[in-house]
């Protein structure tokens, strides 16, 4: 599969990244090299192979659904670039 500049721009939009024309050109070249390399996996027939998504055989672990102390609001807000003491502030959406 060949990746071109349009693909890279589309993926950048999905990833919420902005690339300059120069960055787009460099990334296209580098991503193409990397994707050509990973195409090596096509040498293997995996039609009967199960996927591994997790290195241990653990299943979901749950804790009791009990209220516990959580981060106080001022501390949770403290690292935000913009907040008003009650909430995170972002540019208007509607």
């Amino acid at each position, binding site marked *: *599969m060949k*990746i071109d500049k349009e*693909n*890279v721009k589309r*993926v*950048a939009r*999905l*990833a*919420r*990244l*902005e*690339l300059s024309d120069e*960055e787009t050109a460099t*990334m296209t070249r*580098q*991503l193409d*090299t*990397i*994707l050509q*390399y*990973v195409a*090596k*996996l*096509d040498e*293997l027939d*995996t039609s009967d*192979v*199960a*996927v*591994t*998504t*997790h*290195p*241990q055989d*653990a299943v*979901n*672990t749950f*804790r009791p659904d009990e209220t516990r102390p959580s*981060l106080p609001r001022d*501390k*949770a807000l*403290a*690292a*935000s*670039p*913009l907040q008003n003491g009650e909430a*995170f502030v*972002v*540019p*208007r*959406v509607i």
Partner: protein
Amino acid sequence: MYTMTIAQAREKIARGEISSVELVQSVLARIDAVEDRTKAYLALDREGALAAAEEADRKGGDGPLHGIPLSVKDVFCTKNLPTTCGSKMLAGFIPPYDATVIERLSDAGAIMLGKVAMDEFAMGSTSENCAFQVPENPWKPGYVTGGSSGGSAAAVAAEECFASLGSDTGGSIRQPASLCGIVGMKPTYGRVSRYGLVAFASSLDQVGPLTKDVRDCALMMNVIAGHDPRDSTSIVRDVPDYTTMLTEGLQRMRIGVPREYFGHGLDPEVEGAVRDGIAMLADAGAEIVDVTLPHTEYCVAVYYLIAPAEASSNLSRFDGVRFGHRDMDADSLIDMYRSSRSQGFGDEVKRRILIGTYALSAGYYDAYYKKASQVRTLIRDDFTRAFEQCDLLVSPVTPTPAWKIGEKSDDPLALYLSDILTISANLAGIPALSVPCGISKKGLPIGMQMQAAHFNEGTLLKAAWNLERRNGLNKQKPTLP
């Protein structure tokens, strides 16, 4: 005093021969002497460390790390210290809580010196992707430390701390440990809590120690290992006293040499040092057997799909809202996300987010992510079969010793390929360590990798300790000002 190991310093403190304040002062003086050369520390908390040491001396205590000054990779959340992950995205970020491993170190009596350099968001093999400074190999000026835990490895090798904590997603503890001539262990996936570790690739990341010798590695593992209710991927399982594994002789131990790990591109000096190490393990009583891990050649391709895929998802949290960099000039929400992320992330992080997003996007998921997850099963099965024939696998950690800063930075794929010997352990979730086994003609350290079946960290430590006793490389140190 800074030249001691944890075990030695701990004993002297317990006997009242030295104080923690003296120990911290000694290490701070050492940092002042060599930090210009190593550039390991991103944040150094002199006052905090001295105050904690005074308190440790005043109150006393019998914690296994009582009074011992340590550093940690800047990937762990620390309540009172900046946590940057080596990224402009998190410049100035001070987390509201401590990672579980930071709490455990503190509960054990350790003194926190500060945070050390790393590749941005742990993505890299040289620490050159650190947005603030590039650490240098203590053994040779201008040479890479390895990465991504390069600051940890440099700080330990230069004795600017007694030990450090790192994280390992594809070799990020073992590879810099090898290139800087110290011991580094990636424990079994699930052995150590990751609560408060800034996530890179969640099915691969694991926390582990970088230390001056094998005993200190065991001591650190005793402190950090164990279940944490705040990390549901950590496993409920007893933690042995790892120091009891450090016993003489390897009789009844079968050590496998995977032939695929000695292939094309392996530096002859590295191969020679590893083969010498294998001979020492045989002298110690181990039986050496040939084994095969037939899917090794596919591990880089699998890793560079799975790790970026998971990273693209994990790093979506950096959007300029709750923490980190924000473009204050953007006037719509989407533009704010896009420009904040584009300004905050460096090239390698962007590259991996793009690969990952592409591999997970509609129409490509089956060809890339699913395919890689299936080949991951084949790689895991290779190890299962190998561990039916042996207790331990030994190999080089990296195909070459450290190289010059800047030498490979223009070719991402060439750098990815240098990870070929360390990646598989993360894909399979097994424990692995690096222990020094030689020094090249140019004066650069060479490490041996040991890999074992899930939860067999003790086997790794026993074999590594037997090797260290025989080659004495824990006593060889770099020449620094």
